[in-house]
């Protein structure tokens, strides 16, 4: 038995297959390129938010609009879904049977959808207070940043459904497995972005 070695970031398939890492290495690295360029987009939106957060134009302020308890619940939902997607990938790597993978991914999908509903509820509450994107520079930059993350989560949920269909159609062949690895990296990455949103947007709004 050869010692499985880490060849690319994320869970490696090595150790359970002949040499799936050869295909995975370049594919995963390319996906990392996408993730990092996505990170640049988010970073610049954060910078814009930082410069606009004080420009409330006499309208709603961060403190009046952001609810710490719902931000905490959203954080816990995403964080837990990051754990369950990891468990799903481990089940795929070692069991390669549908049932445990579908179970973990189903939990992840449910947590992602719950997160989206919470976020939608937050936004509609803000709208009902007159906090809409055209009200002030603060709200424009807020609605550029946070819903973009929500759209990423929505894309991740749709991607998860597509992967379910691919598993049903093709089983766990190498291409499907690499796609699921990419999906898990995407999902973990969204959790990291959310930590930044939580800190820079929600928590900072309640400091001072």
């Amino acid at each position, binding site marked *: 038995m050869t010692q499985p070695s*880490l060849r690319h970031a994320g869970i490696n398939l090595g150790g359970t297959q002949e040499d799936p890492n050869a295909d995975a290495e370049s594919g995963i690295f390319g996906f990392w390129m996408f993730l990092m360029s996505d990170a640049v987009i988010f970073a610049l939106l954060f910078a814009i938010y930082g410069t606009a957060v004080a420009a409330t134009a006499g309208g709603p302020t961060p403190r009046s609009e952001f609810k*710490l308890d719902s931000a*905490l619940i959203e954080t816990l939902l995403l964080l837990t879904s990051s754990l369950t997607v990891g468990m799903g990938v481990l089940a795929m790597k070692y069991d390669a049977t549908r049932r445990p993978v579908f179970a973990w991914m189903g939990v992840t999908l449910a947590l992602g959808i719950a997160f989206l509903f919470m976020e939608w509820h937050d936004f509609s509450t803000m709208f009902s207070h007159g906090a809409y994107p055209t009200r002030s520079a603060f709200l424009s930059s807020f609605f550029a940043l946070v819903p973009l993350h929500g759209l990423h989560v929505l894309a991740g949920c749709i991607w998860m459904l597509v992967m379910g269909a691919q598993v049903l159609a093709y089983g766990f062949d190498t291409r499907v497995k690499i796609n699921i690895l990419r999906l898990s990296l995407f999902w973990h990455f969204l959790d990291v972005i959310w*930590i930044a949103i939580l800190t820079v947007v929600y928590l900072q709004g309640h400091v001072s």
Partner: protein
Amino acid sequence: MSERRRETLTYLVGYALALVLTLGAFAAVKWPIAAAGTTLAIILALALVQVIVQFRCFLHISLSRSSRHDLLLVLFASLIVTLMVSGTLVILFNLRDRMM
């Protein structure tokens, strides 16, 4: 310890650390023990630590030789992000000061 248990443990440790860091940041804001500026510095530091924890435990970016390429990519992206974000902040805050 089997490979599977080791990898599961990595996720669980990452999850526990992330939970502690998140709740710590919420507590620092909910029950402030320091001035606003210090609290802000504390939660930003906690977030930075949590990002590193998640990169290490969930995204498996490590200092080991075999994942160097990914580490380099992440570090390069961090450099670009730092340059662009700090440049944006400097220019826009400077502009705002001039317009006041």
